[in-house]
């Protein structure tokens, strides 16, 4: 089980993101709403740097009871990160591609030892 130092938890602000190398691979580490998430930095589409783009709330369309549309809104709960090459969006909490949830980025465990953060493979 390999561990890679990420940084100090006290310096890793909520909403921040960091890319670390695990051997030949790159891993994106996010802190979102107090939790850490780490995923492969290779987009499942064409291999772009999946974790290096925007983090942006999921867009939802709300319908009324009569099925008419109220329009588009940013979700209050679901956050995505977006591959900057082509816009593939991934669910921050699961690493699933929101267009096809069968597609999922490899997830890495994030370990905290004191103030030190590590990614584990």
């Amino acid at each position: 089980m390999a561990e890679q130092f990420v940084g100090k938890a006290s310096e890793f602000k909520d909403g921040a993101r960091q890319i670390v190398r695990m051997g030949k691979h790159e891993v994106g580490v996010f802190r979102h709403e107090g939790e850490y998430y780490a995923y492969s930095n290779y987009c499942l589409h064409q291999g772009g740097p999946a974790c290096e783009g925007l983090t942006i709330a999921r867009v939802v369309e709300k319908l009324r009871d009569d099925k008419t549309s109220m329009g588009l809104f940013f979700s209050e709960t679901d956050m995505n990160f977006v591959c900057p090459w082509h816009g593939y969006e991934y669910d921050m909490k699961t690493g699933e591609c929101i267009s096809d949830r069968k597609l999922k980025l490899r997830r890495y465990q994030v370990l905290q030892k004191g103030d030190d953060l590590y990614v584990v493979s």
Partner: protein
Amino acid sequence: MDLIADRGRRVTVEELNTTKLLAHATEQARDRNYKRMMIVDCDAHHYEQENFGEILPYMESDVYRQLLNSGRAKSRHTIVPGGVGYQDMGGRVTRYPLRSTEKTEPGRQRDVQLGERWMDAMGVDYSCLFPTGMLNIGLHPQKEIETDICWAYNRWLTEKVLPEAGGRLYSMLSLPFSDPDESLRHVERFGDCKHVTGFMVTTVRSNMAVHDNALMKVYRAIEERGLSLAFHSGPNWGEPVFKSCNRFISVHALGFSFYNILHCTNWVINGMGERFPKLPVMWVEGGLSWIPFLMQRLDHEYMLRPSECPLLKKKPSDYMRDMYYSTQPMEIQDMDALQTTFRMMNAETQLLYASDYPHWDFDLPSTIYDLPFLTEKAKHNILGGTAARLFKLPPRNEEQKANLIKFGNYTAA
């Protein structure tokens, strides 16, 4: 630089660096050893509208030049009609909002330097450079200005940009297709310029009949010079048929294929393949899925109504198989359907790789290289061999030369 993302949260990103952004593409090129095969990108773009300060002085009309230069100051009005669209997906495709932050060296054309960066990153040897904003030039209500802008752009490109690229950038020059006489003058003036392999017609036009008698002299002039003709597609939300679409995805998904379907139909049904059998014609940026659709539709109707297309000596799909197609944006969704598409269009000899970089839906060479059903010959041909033969592009190393010879694509350029 800060990019505004979700509900006002600011995400700090570094300045754009194409080489860094495409670092994973470089890994792919190295892992697949692209150096041994010639890779030609037959559809890449630059943002010529950011160079109008250099382009407009080449306009021939003093009056129109003054008119556009005056309006350009402080962006009081646009030079080329623009369309409503959201190519950057609200900033999600970060190279759009960050484009102006990328640094280049002074003293060399910025667009050449950027082109070299993405070609080197992807493992591409040559790129055909097309404009971006001017893909809408066909929507300009004044054909005199359409003509003069095309003239100025083509002079600037052939005199200032392409010569700086060491031969790695070539182009198919924009034609002012609203005016057949002027289009002919462009072919006669620019057809023999270095790094020009043909001419391009943007299909984003409100009214274009590719079979119009007035255009025959243009096609003939291109054919006589051994050059190629490309129809480059695009979306247009202003097109009446698309006004019912409420999302850009719909306009974009349909628009590119729509224009190719429309103009390719007229081209085939009017027997243009019989009239200009030696003119290589290429359909650019429509994806591939429209091709088997149109082949089947036209063949079906032709069997019933041959009296309406008496110039045809074979089925419409046979004429379509005589023409060329660019790969991007390739619909890699159903591998069996894609394989069938490749079979129906004779992809091994008729399909040319295109990235469309830096536009939002670009494709890397790996989209072709990694296809499980392609032979080695087909990979070499599609990624660059066919383009090398068609556009007389020389290999850049001995291994590439050997592979071009091996697969019958070597020309003494």
